[in-house]
């Protein structure tokens, strides 16, 4: 019980505490008027809210589309397309996130929604790939055995393939989230807001304190989300 409390509440609180301490210290001890103007509680909360908005909306969409797409492509009838798609997705992943944002800026214009859309597309890739690879990697003999027992394809999917592929799918999710937190800091270039506001502003006026605040919050967000999903996965695996 105590251990559960520590895992789910204690460690996250420590991480949030570190970020909060840095923010509180910086807001109360600005070295000059520029830092004082750019680092207020109001502004820090605003960029965190924007960042979480970018993250949640794009990740929710990407998870649904990525997992559903991965399952569909792993069906025997689409399997060949799946292999081709896997290659395309791998190539897509090599395009830098900044380039993806820049590309969508030229097509769709400025702002939060464009940034969300670009992040959404970018995050689909690792999720789709891992879902496909996870299901593809299930031992053939196991599926044969299930079929021999008279299981229908849908039941094989939900009872055999998805549970076995689960850790790999979650690994894809975790990769996507960590990439997404980082890539979302680039949204600021096209007016999407988020923690990148602090980082890029700090860079442009040479104020390290502003950069550190943005970077630390982003890093802790990534670590925390990755940690929580990892723990949740352990939970689910043990429980089933």
């Amino acid at each position: 019980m105590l251990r559960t409390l520590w895992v789910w509440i204690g460690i996250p609180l420590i991480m949030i505490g570190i970020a909060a301490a840095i923010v509180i210290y910086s807001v109360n001890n600005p070295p000059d008027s520029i830092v004082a103007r750019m680092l207020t509680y109001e502004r820090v909360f605003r960029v965190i809210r924007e960042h979480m908005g970018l993250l949640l909306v794009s990740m929710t969409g990407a998870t649904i589309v990525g997992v559903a797409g991965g399952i569909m492509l792993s069906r025997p009838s689409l399997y060949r397309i799946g292999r081709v798609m896997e290659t395309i997705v791998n190539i897509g992943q090599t395009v830098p996130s900044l380039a993806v944002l820049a590309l969508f800026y030229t097509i769709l214009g400025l702002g939060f929604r464009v940034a969300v859309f670009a992040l959404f597309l970018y995050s689909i890739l690792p999720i789709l790939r891992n879902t496909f690879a996870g299901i593809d990697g299930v031992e053939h003999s196991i599926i044969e055995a299930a079929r021999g027992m008279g299981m229908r394809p849908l039941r094989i999917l939900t009872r055999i393939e998805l549970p076995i592929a689960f850790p790999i799918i979650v690994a894809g999710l975790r990769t996507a989230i960590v990439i997404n937190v980082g890539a979302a800091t680039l949204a600021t270039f096209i007016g999407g807001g988020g923690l990148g506001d602090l980082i890029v502003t700090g860079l442009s006026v040479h104020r390290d304190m502003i950069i550190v605040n943005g970077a630390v919050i982003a890093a802790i967000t990534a670590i925390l989300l990755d940690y929580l999903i990892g723990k949740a996965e352990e939970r689910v695996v043990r429980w089933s």
Partner: protein
Amino acid sequence: MSIKRLLTLSLVLIFLVGSLFVMGCEPDEPTVTVGSKEFTEQLILGQIALVALEDAGIPVEDETNLGGTVVAREALERGDIGMYWEYTGTALVEFMGHDVITDPEEAYATIAEWDQTENDLVWLEKTPFNNTYTVMMRQEDAEEMGIETISDLAEAINEGVEAPEPGEWSFATDHEYEARDDGLEQLQVHYGFEFESYEVMDLGITYGALNDGMHATAMGFATDARIAEFNLVNLVDDQEFHPVYNCSPVVRQDILDEFPEIPDILNPIAAVLTPEVMSSLNMKVDLEEELPREVAEEWLREEGFIE
């Protein structure tokens, strides 16, 4: 004689002959070496000086595209180059260590006097263009509403005049302008108005965001090529809020002693370099991919400075 000795001897010989050769290449007659920093506007200005001086029969040497501000300035102080174009605001703050000045004449007088007495460098006449922060609107909106200055804009916003596309008085800014002490916040305090909203983005896309109607106004730099390309206008900073960066040829005194006619050649040219002219010259190089030298020659010919 051992091989080693032979090698050493030949190396020494090569060195001696080489240095004689280099020394022989030193120009005997005095020459005006024109330098410049590394960006488009500087390359064009450098070529304008080169072409104009050459046309007047002065021997010149092209050392444009030297690098950043510090490199160009040090080359000038050492005498490696005889002149280059420098911005009043840059020199004031970076070389003189003076505070920012927002009055063009005062900035020019201050730096010119200091450089003359301290460094034997002469600031020739400055350009009317002032490559500083600017507040821009689309030309057709500005004309339709009769807005020419930032004061006019402030008045329009305060009186609740209906905003052009996208329907509110929004402002596109880069990160630095939002953060600077002499940036967005003070601009609004100084002129006594407030934008209804603003969006922070990369500097390179504020011009496009304004042009595409995503914002009603935007900030940028006054001589950027895209101002000419997109038909934007710079609103006049009538209350002199932004620091000034007019540009002047800065020439060494010893070069001027040798060629006293230089001011008569360059001053009339600087006098007609308005922001519109500079922006369109920048556009020809940046967007139409002409060479700085061609652009300089073409413009000087059009204006009748050279045959």
